[in-house]
């Protein structure tokens, strides 16, 4: 497992990609979930009762930053199919949209644009924010383990690596 991680992240390109994914996802989700405010002052806070949501956002960002570059490495280096990449992207995406559509500007825009259909979708994503994020983390974790396994097997039989 460690060797798979080492082989991917020893390449500076993937390390930078990973850090970019982690920081952009973390900052974006923290702003959307109102843990960080940019106006009128840059300020961060974790209101009581929302600590678990914060932990889930950090976990989701970290897993996305781990899984997505590993899959890109696998596709680029080993010229493998993009099938497994789907799990990582899907997990990151559904984890990100859950909770983003609540009472904030995104939810407001969705409801204003799509009316009752938008309201139902927003309500669903808000009501099941925690379970959806947990499922997203699960998908990313599964994708991570299958990617590591695949890298181990595929790298072993590739004489160039």
């Amino acid at each position, binding site marked *: 497992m460690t060797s798979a991680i080492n082989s991917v992240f020893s390449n500076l390109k993937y390390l930078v990609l990973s850090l970019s994914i982690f920081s952009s996802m973390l900052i974006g989700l923290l702003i959307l979930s109102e843990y960080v405010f940019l*106006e*009128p002052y840059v*300020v961060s806070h974790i209101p009581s009762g*929302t600590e678990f949501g914060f932990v889930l956002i950090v976990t989701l960002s970290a897993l996305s930053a781990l899984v997505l570059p590993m899959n890109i490495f696998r596709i680029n280096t080993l010229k493998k199919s993009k099938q497994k990449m789907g799990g990582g992207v899907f997990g990151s995406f559904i984890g990100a949209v859950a909770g983003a559509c609540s009472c904030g*500007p995104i939810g407001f825009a969705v409801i204003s644009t799509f009316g009752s259909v938008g309201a139902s979708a927003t309500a669903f994503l*808000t009501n099941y924010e925690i379970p959806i994020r947990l499922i997203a983390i699960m998908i990313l974790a599964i994708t991570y383990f299958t990617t590591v396994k695949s890298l181990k097997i595929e790298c072993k039989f590739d004489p160039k690596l």
Partner: protein
Amino acid sequence: MKKKGVIIGVIAIAIIAGIAASVSSSPSETMNLDMSRTHGTISTAMGSPILGDPSAPITIVEFGDYQCHQCYNWFHNTKPAIMEDYIKTGKANLVFVDLAFLGRDSPKAAQASYCAEDQEMYWEYHDMLYNLQEDKIDSGWANSERLKAIALDLGLNNELFESCLDSGKYSKRVQYNSQQARDHGVRGTPGFFIVGPDGQQQLGGAQPFSVFKQVLDAMI
């Protein structure tokens, strides 16, 4: 002759009953709105009664939805400190204006708060809604039956409250408030305007007390 007497009797009873009904309902159902009330550029005429000293130099206008969990967070985490340091000391007051957009129960909950205002219990009802908020939108915690049960728990006249809520008496008031929010560029709840003697500042989201303190102190 006898028939004439019966008709006159029925009419007299109907008139007396009508007068009695109007007398019993009018004191508590009369809207006591100051239609010219504004704070900064915002018309708060249809909003809540003013919480705190009406002559305080600063007014915090909060746009909120009773089903919004960030409004719940603000109510529980930031508002208590603002109440202690600014509202109870007469430095600021607060007006709540509805932006009821999150679900089908949101407008009804907002209307219910004004039905409670008819019986001079607006803020008690408002606080009760934010204390009882459940984390799922439209899960039934703010449906008509629950709103009536909350009124009953607060000791409101249930008959008056039910007739007010069922009639949709304050439906247009809530719509007007939501339009005020849209007209002022509020794109989510909670949204705030801090209106001071020299202007107003918009704050978006359930920001912590430290941010409100900086903005309010700069205006005092």
